[in-house]
Protein backbone atom coordinates (compact mmCIF):
# COMPACT_ATOMS: atom_id res chain seq x y z
CA UNK A 1 0.00 0.00 0.00
CA UNK A 2 1.24 3.50 -0.70
CA UNK A 3 1.83 5.80 2.26
CA UNK A 4 -1.65 7.32 2.14
CA UNK A 5 -4.40 5.59 0.18
CA UNK A 6 -6.91 8.16 -1.03
CA UNK A 7 -10.48 7.72 -2.22
CA UNK A 8 -12.70 10.50 -3.53
CA UNK A 9 -16.46 10.06 -3.85
CA UNK A 10 -18.62 12.24 -6.05
CA UNK A 11 -22.36 12.13 -5.74
CA UNK A 12 -25.44 14.15 -5.19
CA UNK A 13 -26.54 15.21 -1.73
CA UNK A 14 -28.76 12.44 -0.40
CA UNK A 15 -26.95 9.60 -2.21
CA UNK A 16 -24.60 8.92 0.66
CA UNK A 17 -21.17 10.06 -0.55
CA UNK A 18 -20.47 11.43 2.93
CA UNK A 19 -21.65 8.35 4.79
CA UNK A 20 -20.01 6.11 2.18
CA UNK A 21 -16.62 7.69 2.76
CA UNK A 22 -17.17 7.47 6.50
CA UNK A 23 -18.15 3.78 6.35
CA UNK A 24 -15.00 3.07 4.36
CA UNK A 25 -12.84 4.99 6.84
CA UNK A 26 -14.40 3.22 9.81
CA UNK A 27 -13.86 -0.18 8.19
CA UNK A 28 -10.16 0.66 7.77
CA UNK A 29 -10.09 2.00 11.34
CA UNK A 30 -11.38 -1.38 12.56
CA UNK A 31 -8.39 -2.95 10.84
CA UNK A 32 -6.04 -0.76 12.85
CA UNK A 33 -5.38 1.84 10.16
CA UNK A 34 -5.20 5.59 10.62
CA UNK A 35 -7.99 7.33 8.79
CA UNK A 36 -9.52 10.66 7.85
CA UNK A 37 -12.95 11.06 6.29
CA UNK A 38 -14.39 14.43 5.47
CA UNK A 39 -16.94 15.90 3.10
CA UNK A 40 -16.60 19.13 1.21
CA UNK A 41 -19.51 21.29 2.22
CA UNK A 42 -21.14 23.65 -0.21
CA UNK A 43 -24.69 24.89 -0.23
CA UNK A 44 -26.14 21.53 0.75
CA UNK A 45 -29.52 20.60 -0.64
CA UNK A 46 -30.74 17.29 -1.94
CA UNK A 47 -29.52 16.69 -5.47
CA UNK A 48 -26.62 19.15 -5.43
CA UNK A 49 -23.21 17.71 -6.40
CA UNK A 50 -21.15 16.69 -3.35
CA UNK A 51 -17.65 15.37 -2.84
CA UNK A 52 -16.28 13.41 0.07
CA UNK A 53 -12.81 12.12 0.91
CA UNK A 54 -11.31 9.11 2.66
CA UNK A 55 -7.62 8.77 3.54
CA UNK A 56 -6.24 5.48 4.85
CA UNK A 57 -2.68 5.03 6.16
CA UNK A 58 -0.45 3.00 8.46
CA UNK A 59 0.90 6.21 10.02
CA UNK A 60 -0.82 9.10 11.79
CA UNK A 61 -2.40 11.42 9.21
CA UNK A 62 -1.24 14.93 10.05
CA UNK A 63 -2.06 16.84 6.87
CA UNK A 64 -5.58 18.22 6.63
CA UNK A 65 -5.46 19.12 2.96
CA UNK A 66 -8.11 17.75 0.60
CA UNK A 67 -7.29 14.92 -1.81
CA UNK A 68 -5.75 16.13 -5.04
CA UNK A 69 -4.39 12.92 -6.55
CA UNK A 70 -6.72 10.12 -5.49
CA UNK A 71 -6.03 6.43 -6.01
CA UNK A 72 -9.71 5.77 -6.58
CA UNK A 73 -12.62 7.95 -7.67
CA UNK A 74 -16.18 6.75 -7.15
CA UNK A 75 -19.08 8.40 -8.98
CA UNK A 76 -22.46 7.74 -7.40
CA UNK A 77 -24.42 9.46 -10.20
CA UNK A 78 -22.97 9.39 -13.69
CA UNK A 79 -25.01 12.46 -14.62
CA UNK A 80 -22.76 14.72 -12.56
CA UNK A 81 -19.92 13.88 -14.96
CA UNK A 82 -21.58 16.32 -17.36
CA UNK A 83 -20.68 19.20 -15.06
CA UNK A 84 -17.92 17.92 -12.72
CA UNK A 85 -14.50 16.71 -13.97
CA UNK A 86 -14.60 13.66 -11.68
CA UNK A 87 -11.30 12.22 -12.93
CA UNK A 88 -9.33 15.40 -12.12
CA UNK A 89 -6.01 14.44 -10.55
CA UNK A 90 -6.69 10.70 -10.97
CA UNK A 91 -3.62 9.13 -12.62
CA UNK A 92 -4.21 6.80 -15.58
CA UNK A 93 -3.17 3.92 -13.32
CA UNK A 94 -5.95 4.87 -10.89
CA UNK A 95 -9.39 3.35 -10.63
CA UNK A 96 -12.63 5.03 -11.62
CA UNK A 97 -15.87 3.34 -10.53
CA UNK A 98 -19.14 4.67 -11.89
CA UNK A 99 -22.71 3.84 -10.90
CA UNK A 100 -24.00 2.77 -14.30
CA UNK A 101 -25.73 -0.13 -16.04
CA UNK A 102 -23.21 -0.16 -18.88
CA UNK A 103 -19.71 1.14 -19.53
CA UNK A 104 -20.86 2.63 -22.81
CA UNK A 105 -18.80 4.85 -25.06
CA UNK A 106 -20.90 7.77 -23.85
CA UNK A 107 -20.06 7.10 -20.20
CA UNK A 108 -16.37 6.76 -21.04
CA UNK A 109 -16.46 10.03 -22.94
CA UNK A 110 -18.21 11.82 -20.07
CA UNK A 111 -15.64 10.53 -17.55
CA UNK A 112 -12.70 12.07 -19.47
CA UNK A 113 -10.44 9.36 -18.10
CA UNK A 114 -7.70 7.48 -19.97
CA UNK A 115 -7.38 4.62 -17.46
CA UNK A 116 -9.72 1.70 -16.87
CA UNK A 117 -13.31 2.59 -16.08
CA UNK A 118 -15.33 0.19 -14.00
CA UNK A 119 -19.10 0.14 -13.73
CA UNK A 120 -21.53 -1.24 -11.21
CA UNK A 121 -25.31 -0.91 -11.35
CA UNK A 122 -25.45 0.36 -7.79
CA UNK A 123 -28.81 2.05 -8.26
CA UNK A 124 -30.30 -1.13 -9.78
CA UNK A 125 -28.94 -3.28 -6.94
CA UNK A 126 -30.18 -0.85 -4.34
CA UNK A 127 -33.66 -0.56 -5.86
CA UNK A 128 -33.93 -4.32 -6.21
CA UNK A 129 -32.81 -5.22 -2.68
CA UNK A 130 -33.83 -2.23 -0.60
CA UNK A 131 -36.49 -0.57 -2.74
CA UNK A 132 -34.73 2.79 -2.60
CA UNK A 133 -31.82 4.42 -4.37
CA UNK A 134 -28.84 4.40 -1.99
CA UNK A 135 -25.95 3.57 -4.31
CA UNK A 136 -23.13 4.13 -1.81
CA UNK A 137 -23.22 0.63 -0.29
CA UNK A 138 -23.04 -1.42 -3.55
CA UNK A 139 -20.33 1.00 -4.74
CA UNK A 140 -18.27 0.15 -1.65
CA UNK A 141 -18.61 -3.55 -2.49
CA UNK A 142 -17.22 -2.81 -5.96
CA UNK A 143 -14.37 -0.84 -4.40
CA UNK A 144 -13.39 -3.77 -2.17
CA UNK A 145 -13.43 -6.17 -5.14
CA UNK A 146 -11.16 -3.93 -7.20
CA UNK A 147 -8.75 -2.74 -4.50
CA UNK A 148 -8.96 -4.95 -1.40
CA UNK A 149 -8.28 -1.77 0.58
CA UNK A 150 -10.49 -3.09 3.40
CA UNK A 151 -12.01 -6.49 4.12
CA UNK A 152 -15.67 -7.17 3.39
CA UNK A 153 -16.10 -8.37 6.99
CA UNK A 154 -14.95 -4.98 8.26
CA UNK A 155 -17.44 -3.11 6.08
CA UNK A 156 -20.22 -5.50 7.07
CA UNK A 157 -19.41 -4.96 10.75
CA UNK A 158 -19.46 -1.19 10.30
CA UNK A 159 -22.76 -1.34 8.39
CA UNK A 160 -24.25 -3.36 11.22
CA UNK A 161 -22.89 -1.04 13.91
CA UNK A 162 -24.15 2.09 12.16
CA UNK A 163 -27.49 0.96 10.85
CA UNK A 164 -28.79 -1.61 13.32
CA UNK A 165 -30.07 0.97 15.83
CA UNK A 166 -31.51 3.10 13.01
CA UNK A 167 -33.13 0.68 10.56
CA UNK A 168 -33.21 -2.73 12.25
CA UNK A 169 -31.87 -6.18 11.42
CA UNK A 170 -33.85 -6.81 8.23
CA UNK A 171 -32.59 -3.69 6.47
CA UNK A 172 -29.07 -4.23 7.77
CA UNK A 173 -29.17 -7.64 6.08
CA UNK A 174 -30.40 -6.01 2.89
CA UNK A 175 -27.52 -3.52 3.03
CA UNK A 176 -25.04 -6.35 3.49
CA UNK A 177 -26.59 -8.11 0.49
CA UNK A 178 -26.22 -4.89 -1.51
CA UNK A 179 -22.58 -4.65 -0.50
CA UNK A 180 -21.95 -8.26 -1.60
CA UNK A 181 -23.82 -7.83 -4.86
CA UNK A 182 -21.79 -4.71 -5.66
CA UNK A 183 -18.67 -6.78 -4.99
CA UNK A 184 -19.84 -9.55 -7.34
CA UNK A 185 -21.25 -7.47 -10.14
CA UNK A 186 -18.62 -4.81 -10.83
CA UNK A 187 -17.63 -4.91 -14.50
CA UNK A 188 -15.25 -3.26 -16.97
Amino acid at each position, binding site marked *: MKEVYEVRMHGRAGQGAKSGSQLLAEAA*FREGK*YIQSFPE*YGSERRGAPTVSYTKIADQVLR*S*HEPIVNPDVVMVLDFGIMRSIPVAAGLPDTGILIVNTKVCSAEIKKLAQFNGTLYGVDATGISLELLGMDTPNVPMLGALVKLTGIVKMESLEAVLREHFLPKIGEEKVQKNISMLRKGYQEVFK
Partner: protein
Amino acid sequence: MGVRKAITGAEAAAEAMRQINPDVVVAYPITPQTPIVEQFAKYVADGIVDTEMVPVESEHSAMSATVGAEAAGARAMSATSSQGLALMWEIVAATPGLRLPVVISLVNRALSAPINIHCDHSDVMGVTTLGWIQIFSENAQEVYENLLLAIRVAEDTRVQLPAMVNQDGFITSHAVEPVEIFDDALVRKFVGVRSLNRALLDVEHPKSVGPLVLPDYYFEFKRAQEQAMSKVFEVYREVGTELSAITGKQYPFFETYRTDDAEAVVVVLNSAAGTAKVAVDAVRAQGKKVGMLKPILFRPFPYSEVRDALRHVPVVGILDRSMDFGAYAPVYSEFRNALWELDKKPATQSYIYGLGGRDIMTTEIEAVFEELLSGNLDPEHQRYIGLRG
Protein backbone atom coordinates in the same frame (compact mmCIF):
# COMPACT_ATOMS: atom_id res chain seq x y z
CA MET B 1 -5.54 3.13 28.38
CA GLY B 2 -8.52 4.67 26.70
CA VAL B 3 -10.86 3.60 23.95
CA ARG B 4 -10.06 4.54 20.36
CA LYS B 5 -13.04 5.81 18.39
CA ALA B 6 -13.43 7.12 14.84
CA ILE B 7 -15.24 10.41 15.47
CA THR B 8 -15.35 14.02 14.28
CA GLY B 9 -13.89 17.02 16.09
CA ALA B 10 -17.42 18.04 17.02
CA GLU B 11 -18.08 14.59 18.49
CA ALA B 12 -14.74 14.76 20.32
CA ALA B 13 -15.91 17.98 21.98
CA ALA B 14 -19.19 16.29 22.90
CA GLU B 15 -17.24 13.33 24.36
CA ALA B 16 -15.32 15.72 26.61
CA MET B 17 -18.62 17.31 27.65
CA ARG B 18 -20.07 13.86 28.35
CA GLN B 19 -17.21 13.11 30.73
CA ILE B 20 -17.35 16.58 32.30
CA ASN B 21 -21.12 16.07 32.76
CA PRO B 22 -21.82 19.78 33.28
CA ASP B 23 -24.79 20.84 35.39
CA VAL B 24 -26.13 23.03 32.62
CA VAL B 25 -25.58 23.29 28.85
CA VAL B 26 -27.29 26.13 27.06
CA ALA B 27 -27.24 26.44 23.30
CA TYR B 28 -28.98 27.90 20.33
CA PRO B 29 -29.74 24.74 18.36
CA ILE B 30 -29.90 26.08 14.80
CA THR B 31 -27.23 27.25 12.30
CA PRO B 32 -24.51 28.37 12.91
CA GLN B 33 -24.60 25.76 15.67
CA THR B 34 -22.40 22.72 15.09
CA PRO B 35 -22.93 18.97 15.68
CA ILE B 36 -21.34 19.39 19.15
CA VAL B 37 -24.67 20.35 20.65
CA GLU B 38 -26.59 17.82 18.52
CA GLN B 39 -24.41 15.00 19.84
CA PHE B 40 -24.51 16.26 23.42
CA ALA B 41 -28.31 16.57 23.28
CA LYS B 42 -28.41 12.84 22.47
CA TYR B 43 -26.42 12.11 25.63
CA VAL B 44 -28.93 14.17 27.59
CA ALA B 45 -31.92 12.47 25.94
CA ASP B 46 -30.42 9.01 26.52
CA GLY B 47 -29.74 9.78 30.18
CA ILE B 48 -25.98 9.29 29.74
CA VAL B 49 -25.40 12.64 31.44
CA ASP B 50 -27.62 14.38 33.95
CA THR B 51 -27.14 17.83 32.50
CA GLU B 52 -29.96 20.35 32.33
CA MET B 53 -30.04 21.12 28.60
CA VAL B 54 -31.57 24.49 27.76
CA PRO B 55 -32.27 25.27 24.11
CA VAL B 56 -32.79 29.02 23.66
CA GLU B 57 -33.85 31.41 20.93
CA SER B 58 -30.50 33.06 20.19
CA GLU B 59 -26.81 32.92 21.03
CA HIS B 60 -27.18 36.12 23.04
CA SER B 61 -29.64 34.23 25.23
CA ALA B 62 -27.44 31.14 25.20
CA MET B 63 -24.48 33.02 26.66
CA SER B 64 -26.74 34.94 29.06
CA ALA B 65 -28.26 31.75 30.47
CA THR B 66 -24.84 30.06 30.64
CA VAL B 67 -23.56 33.01 32.66
CA GLY B 68 -26.65 32.93 34.87
CA ALA B 69 -26.23 29.24 35.61
CA GLU B 70 -22.51 29.65 36.29
CA ALA B 71 -23.19 32.58 38.64
CA ALA B 72 -25.71 30.44 40.51
CA GLY B 73 -22.92 27.94 41.14
CA ALA B 74 -23.45 25.46 38.34
CA ARG B 75 -20.80 24.18 35.96
CA ALA B 76 -22.24 25.57 32.72
CA MET B 77 -21.03 25.10 29.15
CA SER B 78 -22.03 26.12 25.66
CA ALA B 79 -20.84 25.80 22.09
CA THR B 80 -21.05 28.06 19.11
CA SER B 81 -19.39 29.22 15.90
CA SER B 82 -18.88 32.30 13.70
CA GLN B 83 -22.02 34.52 13.68
CA GLY B 84 -23.19 32.81 16.85
CA LEU B 85 -20.17 34.10 18.75
CA ALA B 86 -20.71 37.51 17.18
CA LEU B 87 -24.27 37.59 18.53
CA MET B 88 -23.00 36.50 21.97
CA TRP B 89 -20.43 39.29 22.03
CA GLU B 90 -22.04 41.49 24.68
CA ILE B 91 -22.16 38.66 27.21
CA VAL B 92 -18.81 37.22 26.09
CA ALA B 93 -17.35 40.57 27.11
CA ALA B 94 -19.13 40.54 30.47
CA THR B 95 -18.19 36.98 31.52
CA PRO B 96 -14.52 37.53 32.45
CA GLY B 97 -15.39 40.65 34.49
CA LEU B 98 -17.92 38.55 36.40
CA ARG B 99 -15.07 36.10 37.01
CA LEU B 100 -17.20 33.18 35.88
CA PRO B 101 -15.23 30.16 34.63
CA VAL B 102 -17.59 29.27 31.81
CA VAL B 103 -16.03 26.98 29.19
CA ILE B 104 -17.30 27.04 25.64
CA SER B 105 -16.36 25.16 22.51
CA LEU B 106 -15.81 27.38 19.50
CA VAL B 107 -15.74 25.97 15.99
CA ASN B 108 -13.77 28.57 14.04
CA ARG B 109 -15.65 29.76 10.98
CA ALA B 110 -15.83 32.90 8.88
CA LEU B 111 -17.86 35.98 9.74
CA SER B 112 -20.22 37.57 7.25
CA ALA B 113 -20.14 39.39 4.86
CA PRO B 114 -20.03 37.91 2.30
CA ILE B 115 -21.94 34.97 3.76
CA ASN B 116 -19.63 31.99 4.21
CA ILE B 117 -19.80 29.02 6.54
CA HIS B 118 -16.25 27.73 6.21
CA CYS B 119 -13.10 27.63 8.29
CA ASP B 120 -11.59 30.97 9.22
CA HIS B 121 -10.32 32.49 12.47
CA SER B 122 -12.16 35.82 12.21
CA ASP B 123 -14.66 34.78 14.88
CA VAL B 124 -12.17 34.09 17.67
CA MET B 125 -9.78 36.89 16.72
CA GLY B 126 -12.64 39.32 17.27
CA VAL B 127 -12.82 38.37 20.97
CA THR B 128 -9.18 37.90 21.99
CA THR B 129 -9.12 41.30 23.76
CA LEU B 130 -12.06 40.44 26.01
CA GLY B 131 -10.31 38.42 28.70
CA TRP B 132 -11.07 34.79 27.88
CA ILE B 133 -8.46 32.07 28.06
CA GLN B 134 -7.99 30.95 24.44
CA ILE B 135 -6.78 27.45 23.60
CA PHE B 136 -6.32 26.13 20.04
CA SER B 137 -6.49 22.53 18.80
CA GLU B 138 -4.82 20.91 15.80
CA ASN B 139 -7.11 17.90 15.56
CA ALA B 140 -10.03 16.10 17.19
CA GLN B 141 -7.78 14.47 19.80
CA GLU B 142 -6.54 17.86 20.97
CA VAL B 143 -10.08 19.26 21.02
CA TYR B 144 -11.06 16.53 23.47
CA GLU B 145 -8.05 16.92 25.75
CA ASN B 146 -8.03 20.73 25.63
CA LEU B 147 -11.62 20.88 26.87
CA LEU B 148 -10.74 18.74 29.88
CA LEU B 149 -7.72 20.95 30.54
CA ALA B 150 -9.72 24.16 30.08
CA ILE B 151 -12.34 23.29 32.70
CA ARG B 152 -9.73 22.86 35.40
CA VAL B 153 -7.65 25.92 34.44
CA ALA B 154 -10.73 28.16 34.22
CA GLU B 155 -12.17 27.04 37.56
CA ASP B 156 -8.91 27.18 39.53
CA THR B 157 -9.35 29.60 42.44
CA ARG B 158 -6.30 31.56 41.28
CA VAL B 159 -7.90 32.10 37.86
CA GLN B 160 -11.75 32.11 37.81
CA LEU B 161 -11.89 33.20 34.19
CA PRO B 162 -13.80 31.81 31.20
CA ALA B 163 -12.10 29.71 28.54
CA MET B 164 -12.74 29.04 24.88
CA VAL B 165 -11.46 25.89 23.18
CA ASN B 166 -11.04 26.38 19.44
CA GLN B 167 -11.11 23.96 16.53
CA ASP B 168 -11.21 24.50 12.78
CA GLY B 169 -14.65 24.55 11.21
CA PHE B 170 -15.37 21.52 8.98
CA ILE B 171 -11.67 20.62 8.62
CA THR B 172 -11.70 19.40 12.22
CA SER B 173 -15.31 19.67 13.32
CA HIS B 174 -16.73 17.51 10.52
CA ALA B 175 -13.78 15.23 9.73
CA VAL B 176 -13.73 11.71 11.16
CA GLU B 177 -10.39 10.84 12.75
CA PRO B 178 -9.21 8.33 15.34
CA VAL B 179 -9.57 9.77 18.85
CA GLU B 180 -8.51 8.10 22.06
CA ILE B 181 -11.10 8.68 24.77
CA PHE B 182 -9.60 8.13 28.20
CA ASP B 183 -11.17 6.20 31.03
CA ASP B 184 -14.40 7.80 32.27
CA ALA B 185 -13.61 7.31 35.94
CA LEU B 186 -10.10 8.74 35.67
CA VAL B 187 -11.28 11.75 33.68
CA ARG B 188 -14.20 12.40 36.03
CA LYS B 189 -11.82 12.31 38.98
CA PHE B 190 -9.56 14.75 37.12
CA VAL B 191 -12.32 17.25 36.28
CA GLY B 192 -13.88 16.93 39.75
CA VAL B 193 -16.74 19.20 40.72
CA ARG B 194 -16.81 22.97 40.64
CA SER B 195 -16.06 24.60 43.97
CA LEU B 196 -19.15 26.40 45.26
CA ASN B 197 -17.27 29.01 47.25
CA ARG B 198 -18.59 31.86 45.08
CA ALA B 199 -22.06 30.56 44.26
CA LEU B 200 -24.95 33.00 44.21
CA LEU B 201 -27.23 30.24 45.49
CA ASP B 202 -25.07 29.76 48.56
CA VAL B 203 -27.67 31.54 50.72
CA GLU B 204 -25.56 31.19 53.85
CA HIS B 205 -23.14 33.64 52.26
CA PRO B 206 -25.23 36.21 50.37
CA LYS B 207 -23.41 38.26 47.78
CA SER B 208 -23.97 40.42 44.70
CA VAL B 209 -22.83 39.51 41.20
CA GLY B 210 -22.40 42.10 38.49
CA PRO B 211 -22.98 45.32 40.44
CA LEU B 212 -22.64 48.85 39.07
CA VAL B 213 -19.07 50.00 39.57
CA LEU B 214 -18.37 53.56 38.52
CA PRO B 215 -14.98 55.24 38.04
CA ASP B 216 -14.29 54.63 41.74
CA TYR B 217 -13.46 50.90 41.35
CA TYR B 218 -13.99 49.71 37.74
CA PHE B 219 -10.26 50.17 37.07
CA GLU B 220 -9.35 47.97 40.05
CA PHE B 221 -11.73 45.22 38.87
CA LYS B 222 -9.98 45.17 35.53
CA ARG B 223 -6.55 45.13 37.14
CA ALA B 224 -7.62 42.12 39.25
CA GLN B 225 -8.84 40.42 36.07
CA GLU B 226 -5.43 40.95 34.47
CA GLN B 227 -3.67 39.55 37.53
CA ALA B 228 -5.89 36.46 37.35
CA MET B 229 -5.00 36.07 33.69
CA SER B 230 -1.29 36.20 34.54
CA LYS B 231 -1.83 33.23 36.90
CA VAL B 232 -3.05 31.08 34.01
CA PHE B 233 0.49 30.09 32.99
CA GLU B 234 1.35 28.35 36.27
CA VAL B 235 -2.11 26.82 36.62
CA TYR B 236 -2.04 25.57 33.02
CA ARG B 237 1.31 23.88 33.71
CA GLU B 238 0.08 22.27 36.93
CA VAL B 239 -3.21 21.07 35.45
CA GLY B 240 -1.36 19.88 32.34
CA THR B 241 0.94 17.77 34.52
CA GLU B 242 -2.10 16.22 36.21
CA LEU B 243 -3.74 15.49 32.87
CA SER B 244 -0.48 13.94 31.62
CA ALA B 245 -0.86 11.27 34.29
CA ILE B 246 -3.99 10.09 32.46
CA THR B 247 -3.06 10.74 28.83
CA GLY B 248 0.71 10.33 28.83
CA LYS B 249 0.99 13.53 26.80
CA GLN B 250 2.53 16.93 27.43
CA TYR B 251 0.58 20.20 27.56
CA PRO B 252 2.99 22.97 26.53
CA PHE B 253 1.94 26.56 25.75
CA PHE B 254 2.90 25.86 22.15
CA GLU B 255 4.27 22.95 20.17
CA THR B 256 7.56 23.13 18.31
CA TYR B 257 8.27 20.73 15.47
CA ARG B 258 11.87 20.27 14.27
CA THR B 259 12.81 23.83 15.27
CA ASP B 260 16.08 23.08 17.13
CA ASP B 261 18.45 23.68 14.21
CA ALA B 262 15.89 25.36 11.95
CA GLU B 263 16.91 28.21 9.67
CA ALA B 264 13.27 29.05 8.90
CA VAL B 265 10.18 28.44 11.00
CA VAL B 266 6.51 28.75 10.15
CA VAL B 267 3.99 29.67 12.86
CA VAL B 268 0.43 28.47 12.33
CA LEU B 269 -2.67 27.69 14.43
CA ASN B 270 -5.05 24.72 14.49
CA SER B 271 -5.43 22.15 11.70
CA ALA B 272 -3.00 23.80 9.27
CA ALA B 273 -0.24 23.02 11.79
CA GLY B 274 -0.63 19.34 10.90
CA THR B 275 -0.35 20.15 7.22
CA ALA B 276 2.72 22.31 8.02
CA LYS B 277 4.43 19.37 9.75
CA VAL B 278 4.14 17.37 6.53
CA ALA B 279 5.59 20.36 4.65
CA VAL B 280 8.48 20.57 7.15
CA ASP B 281 9.30 16.90 6.57
CA ALA B 282 9.16 17.38 2.79
CA VAL B 283 11.49 20.41 2.86
CA ARG B 284 13.82 18.70 5.36
CA ALA B 285 14.04 15.76 2.95
CA GLN B 286 15.65 18.19 0.50
CA GLY B 287 18.32 18.96 3.12
CA LYS B 288 16.88 22.32 4.19
CA LYS B 289 16.54 23.01 7.90
CA VAL B 290 13.01 24.18 8.62
CA GLY B 291 10.53 23.82 11.45
CA MET B 292 7.10 24.75 12.73
CA LEU B 293 5.66 26.39 15.84
CA LYS B 294 2.00 25.85 16.70
CA PRO B 295 0.52 28.20 19.32
CA ILE B 296 -1.85 26.37 21.70
CA LEU B 297 -2.37 28.78 24.60
CA PHE B 298 -3.05 32.05 22.76
CA ARG B 299 -4.55 34.00 25.72
CA PRO B 300 -2.71 34.64 27.86
CA PHE B 301 0.08 34.83 25.29
CA PRO B 302 3.40 33.30 26.40
CA TYR B 303 5.67 36.09 25.08
CA SER B 304 8.90 35.15 26.85
CA GLU B 305 8.60 31.42 26.10
CA VAL B 306 7.92 32.15 22.42
CA ARG B 307 10.91 34.49 22.36
CA ASP B 308 13.18 31.81 23.81
CA ALA B 309 11.89 29.22 21.37
CA LEU B 310 12.59 31.39 18.34
CA ARG B 311 15.64 33.47 19.34
CA HIS B 312 18.04 31.25 17.37
CA VAL B 313 15.92 31.16 14.21
CA PRO B 314 17.04 33.48 11.37
CA VAL B 315 13.59 33.88 9.77
CA VAL B 316 10.02 33.25 10.91
CA GLY B 317 6.92 33.23 8.71
CA ILE B 318 3.66 33.78 10.59
CA LEU B 319 0.46 32.50 8.97
CA ASP B 320 -2.90 34.05 9.87
CA ARG B 321 -6.35 32.74 8.95
CA SER B 322 -7.94 36.14 9.57
CA MET B 323 -7.04 39.74 8.92
CA ASP B 324 -6.96 42.87 11.05
CA PHE B 325 -7.84 45.34 8.32
CA GLY B 326 -5.44 48.25 8.27
CA ALA B 327 -3.16 46.63 10.85
CA TYR B 328 -0.85 43.65 11.19
CA ALA B 329 -2.69 40.33 11.35
CA PRO B 330 -3.42 39.03 14.88
CA VAL B 331 -0.99 36.09 15.14
CA TYR B 332 1.72 38.02 13.30
CA SER B 333 1.31 40.93 15.72
CA GLU B 334 1.84 38.72 18.75
CA PHE B 335 4.97 37.10 17.35
CA ARG B 336 6.43 40.40 16.16
CA ASN B 337 5.81 41.76 19.65
CA ALA B 338 7.34 38.72 21.32
CA LEU B 339 10.52 38.96 19.23
CA TRP B 340 10.94 42.73 19.55
CA GLU B 341 12.83 42.44 22.87
CA LEU B 342 15.67 40.51 21.25
CA ASP B 343 18.86 42.37 20.31
CA LYS B 344 19.32 40.08 17.34
CA LYS B 345 15.78 39.59 16.06
CA PRO B 346 14.67 36.93 13.61
CA ALA B 347 13.40 38.41 10.35
CA THR B 348 9.62 38.01 10.06
CA GLN B 349 7.08 37.75 7.29
CA SER B 350 3.30 37.87 7.59
CA TYR B 351 1.14 35.59 5.45
CA ILE B 352 -2.65 35.43 5.18
CA TYR B 353 -4.12 32.08 4.13
CA GLY B 354 -7.33 30.10 4.05
CA LEU B 355 -9.94 32.83 4.53
CA GLY B 356 -13.49 31.56 4.16
CA GLY B 357 -12.31 27.97 3.92
CA ARG B 358 -9.81 28.35 1.06
CA ASP B 359 -7.76 25.15 1.17
CA ILE B 360 -4.17 25.32 2.37
CA MET B 361 -1.98 22.73 0.70
CA THR B 362 1.31 21.18 1.82
CA THR B 363 2.93 22.45 -1.37
CA GLU B 364 1.89 26.02 -0.53
CA ILE B 365 3.58 25.83 2.86
CA GLU B 366 6.66 24.34 1.18
CA ALA B 367 6.68 27.41 -1.08
CA VAL B 368 6.52 29.64 2.02
CA PHE B 369 9.66 27.92 3.35
CA GLU B 370 11.40 28.50 0.01
CA GLU B 371 10.50 32.18 0.15
CA LEU B 372 11.62 32.55 3.78
CA LEU B 373 14.97 30.87 3.02
CA SER B 374 15.45 33.01 -0.11
CA GLY B 375 15.52 36.19 2.00
CA ASN B 376 12.87 37.80 -0.20
CA LEU B 377 10.95 39.37 2.68
CA ASP B 378 8.79 42.40 3.27
CA PRO B 379 7.97 42.60 6.99
CA GLU B 380 5.82 45.71 6.51
CA HIS B 381 3.37 44.03 4.17
CA GLN B 382 1.43 40.83 4.48
CA ARG B 383 1.51 38.31 1.66
CA TYR B 384 -1.31 36.04 0.57
CA ILE B 385 -1.22 32.27 0.14
CA GLY B 386 -3.59 30.77 -2.42
CA LEU B 387 -5.22 34.07 -3.36
CA ARG B 388 -6.69 34.17 -6.86
CA GLY B 389 -4.94 36.65 -9.14
